[in-house]
Structures are given as C-alpha cells and as structure tokens.
C-alpha cells in the first residue's frame, strides 16, 4: 500500500514540481488555494497528465514519461472523492454506488446491488437508496460519493477537499465517517485540504505546499511543533510572523521592532510566535516586551487582542489569543512574555 510521486507539470502561472511518497498512512497536502495540491491528486488519478516524471501506485508504474507509460484513470485503481461530490444526477444513490461495484467484472448484478446496499447502510444512508442526489443534503451526498468509491475497492484513496462545501455541523459529522472509513480502509489515503485542524485530526504525515513545490514534508506533530519555514508556520496556523536577522548576539524581529536573545545561529530569516502562547507579565530571560492593546475583538470563546510593541508606534500588530477572563483582567498597556521554546526560527 503506497504511492510514489515525482512529477513536473507547467500549470498556468506556476510549475508544479513535486516529490512525495506515502505508505500505509494518511498523507495530507496542505497549502493555499491554487498552489498545486489538487493538481497533484489529479495527476495521480490520471485526470491530468504531468509533463514529466514518474507515478507509482502500490509499486505499479502508472505514469512514466521516459518509458511512455500513462495508464488511463480506469486502470489506476484510485478512489477519488471530489469536492463537489460528482454524483451522477440522473441515477439514484443505489445506481450511483452500483457503478462503483462494476470494477469487479466477476460480480453479477444482484451481487453488485447487495454490495452497494451494504455500503450505503455502512455510511448511514439506508432508506435513501432510491433518492436522487439532488434530493439529499451535502453531507449525505458526500457520504454517497464515499460509498461509491469504497465499493469499487480502490488501491488508494484520494480526497480532494472533501468537506469544504459543507457547513460546520455536517462537516464534523461527515469528517467522522470519513475518518472511520479511512481507518477501515487500512491503505494509503491522500487528503487535500487548507484546514490545519482537519489535517491534525485526520492525517499521520503532512506535506506543505508553496507555489507548486513541497515546502516541508514530515510527521504532522513535528511540523506543528517545528514548522521550519515561514510558509509552513503560516499554514499550520501561526498568526504572528516577522522578518528577522541576527545582530549583535540578538535576534532582531524587524516587523515588530523587538529583539530577543540569540537561541541559535541561523539560516533563519523569519521568526514566529503562535497567538495563544503569550502570557501576561514580565520575565528576566529576554522573552518579554511592553505592549499596548490596539484592538480587542471578542471571539466565540476567546478574545483576540491585537497588540503592538509599546516602544514602537509604527511596528506591526501582534495577535494574542486568550480566554475571556484573562483578557478582561489585562490593562491597556503592560508587559507580555512567552516561553523561550515558543519562538519559532524559520527559513523563507
């Protein structure tokens, strides 16, 4: 159970240049829209053709530009879950799922029907067999699309932003079913998303994209703790990033006009601090600064404070997220600090 991708393709204004591999695990592709995540998935599925490179699924070469191998999507054995579900509107749910069962040519029609019914029931869609896709909610449609894929017994699962068209409640419910399905599947799954929380809940490893290239690739927890690049930090949810350089034994964060003790020499050019890592009060270790609160925004269960280095009125705002009680007790100006290990040193 694996997928190996090493491809290049010119796509409009950027060049997709990606090298990835995944074993029996869930790999997430995280990145801004239009950075090539979905294109990667489409190349694996055979919907798009890379300009050059190699794609292997379970060790089987499905694309090799040098050897002129380019298997049709029909021959690749992938299950592709589309953002807009792509259910056939002229067929009932049962007929849709039965199409998935056609891949195994040895099955009779009634066997395929039984398989489809069982799969629909497994995804809590029993009773809706004779409904048309347009009569269903988005969540039900996505589950039906998942059923259609699973019944086709794919070698790998490709999930292209499967929850992005759903509202919050359905999203959660659908995500749980997809998570269970991936766990049952026990094979390689590749998930495209731009939601870092989804990544954290669903996947094992993470590839962060930037302008068509893989910026960082690693275990998800590792990349959340140590994002390595400014892009990865941003995409894993770090709200505060500043250009930085080393000067006189200090780290100078240019955008914030702050300096901190030198932790290590870098090739780093950025620093980052996650918004919920700040604590009120002053410390002597050098990782504190005087703040002045510029904006105080009430969020659902927390407060978002936009503060500024009190000594530098032109410096960039720094975001501090804290619970409402802590925020209420804070004076307009004061000192704020953060643990030393929370200062992320990042390359470009």
């Amino acid at each position, binding site marked *: 159970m694996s997928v190996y991708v090493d491809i290049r393709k010119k796509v409009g204004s950027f060049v997709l240049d990606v090298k990835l591999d995944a074993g029996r695990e869930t790999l997430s592709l995280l990145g801004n829209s239009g950075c090539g995540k979905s294109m990667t998935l*489409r190349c694996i*599925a*055979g*919907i798009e053709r890379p300009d050059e490179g190699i794609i292997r699924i379970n060790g089987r070469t499905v694309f090799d530009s040098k050897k002129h191998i380019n298997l*049709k*999507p*029909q021959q*690749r*054995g*992938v*299950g*592709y879950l*589309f953002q*807009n579900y*792509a*259910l*056939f*509107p*002229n*067929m009932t749910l049962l007929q849709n799922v039965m*199409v*998935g069962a*056609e*891949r195994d040519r040895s099955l009779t029609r009634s066997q395929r029907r039984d398989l489809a019914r069982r799969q629909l029931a497994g995804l809590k869609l029993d009773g809706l067999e004779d409904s048309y896709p*347009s009569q269903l909610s988005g969540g039900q449609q996505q589950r039906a*699309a998942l059923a*259609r*894929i699973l019944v*086709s017994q794919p070698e790998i699962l490709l999930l292209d932003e499967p929850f992005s068209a759903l509202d919050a409640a359905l999203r959660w419910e659908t995500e749980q079913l997809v998570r269970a399905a991936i766990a049952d599947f026990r094979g390689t799954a590749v998930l495209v998303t731009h939601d870092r929380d989804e990544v954290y809940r669903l996947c094992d490893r993470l590839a962060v994209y930037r302008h068509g290239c893989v910026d960082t690739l690693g275990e998800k927890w590792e990349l959340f703790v140590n994002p390595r690049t400014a892009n990865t930090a941003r995409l894993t949810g770090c709200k505060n990033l500043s250009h930085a350089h080393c000067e006189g034994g200090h780290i100078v964060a240019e955008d914030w006009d702050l300096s901190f003790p030198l932790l290590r020499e870098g090739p780093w050019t950025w620093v980052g601090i996650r918004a919920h890592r700040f604590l009120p009060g002053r410390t002597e270790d050098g990782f504190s600064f005087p703040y002045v609160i510029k904006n105080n925004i009430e969020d659902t269960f927390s407060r978002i404070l936009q503060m500024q280095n009190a000594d530098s009125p032109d410096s960039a705002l720094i975001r501090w997220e804290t619970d409402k009680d802590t925020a209420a007790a804070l004076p307009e100006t004061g000192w704020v600090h953060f643990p030393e290990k929370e200062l992320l040193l990042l390359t470009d």
Partner: protein
Amino acid sequence: MRQLGQIIAGFDWSPFWISLKTGTVATVVCFFLGLWTARMVLKAGPKLRAVADSILTLPMILAPTVAGFFLLLLFSLRRPVGAFLYRELNVKVVQTWLGCIIAASVISFPLMYRNARAAFEQVDPNLIHAARTLGMKERRIFWRVALPSAGPGVASGTILTFARALGEFGATSMLAGNIAGKTGTISQKIANVIKDGDYVTAGIWVGIMLVIAFVILVLFNLVSGGKGHRHSRW
C-alpha cells in the same frame, strides 16, 4: 364550403407523409452525427475547433439555395461523385427521396451539432472524471453519464432539428425537386399550389404546418424547461 369539402375528400396526403418521413430520418441521422461531431470538436484543440465549428455551422447561416447549389455540384449525375455513386452503387441522389433526406439533413445538422456542443460544454467535467476513476468504459460514460447530463440541451437540439428538417424548402427543391408522391414535401406543395392560385389548398397545408410548429414549440419548451429546474421569476 362545398369547395372545401370537395378538396378535403380528394385530398392528397402524400406531402404530409413525405415531409414526416424526411424529417424523421434526417433527425435520426443528424442526432447521431451531431452528437459524434460535437464530441469530436470538443476533444480537438482550440484552433482546429474554431475552424471545424465555422464549417459545421455554415449551412445554418447560408441561404439554403446556396447549400443546394453545392449539393447539386456534388451529386449531379454529370459530376464525378454523383456519377460514381450511380455507376458503382446504383445510388441516385438528385430527384429522389434520398435527395430530400440529404438536403434536410445538411440544412438542419448545425442545429443539432450546436445544441449538442453547448450541452456537452455544460456537463460538469468532474462527473466524467469520477466515472473514469471508477473504471467505467468510455462508451458507457458517454451514454450513461455525459448524455443524460446534457439531456435537456440535446433534446431541444433534436426537436429544433426535426422542425427545421420538416420545413426545409430551398435545398430540397434544388436537389430532390418536387415530384408529387415522391419528393413533394409540404413546403414544396404550398409553393406549388400558390403558383396555380389555389389558396384553399395552400391554406390547409399552412394550417397543418402551423399546428405542427406549435406542437413542436410546446414540446421544446417543456423539454428545455426540464425537470428539476425551478424557474425563478424576475
């Protein structure tokens, strides 16, 4: 009134059947040819597509007599193609019912082709991609996924094609002529009886044409309104 009664009693219904047969056969021909061409043109690159599109739409823009002129050039027994067909295959196009069908097909083909193309362009490409990744064969994808999704557009194209083929006059009169009981369609009958000043017979045929046209338009609107489309007023 007595005059009308006499006319109806001895009425020659052959133009009606000739028109209906011509329209039906031409529609069937155009349906398959139009779908296939639309599919091919959509597969082609942008330049080839522009050229092919122009050529395929030409019969709709040109005067039917111009199309008739070219058809005569092609099929006349004194021309290579026409002579070859007659000599080798014993097929005669000029002054025959086959000529009616060819003329009507050529003139109404662009309606089928253009409607089918527009309808195919509206099909969500992800449906086709999904079908492919699920392992469906291309031919089956076309008939089971693409065509049903393009359904209303294809259906309205078919109806318009039938209407156009049914009423074809210019190219038909040049290629197939107006032989009563053989190539004499309703349109030609009307032109013919008017020439003789027989306004009553002409009127009856005009009435029949109006009824057919109205039925076709109602059908067209029902189909292109489509099920599932909820019309919002504005």
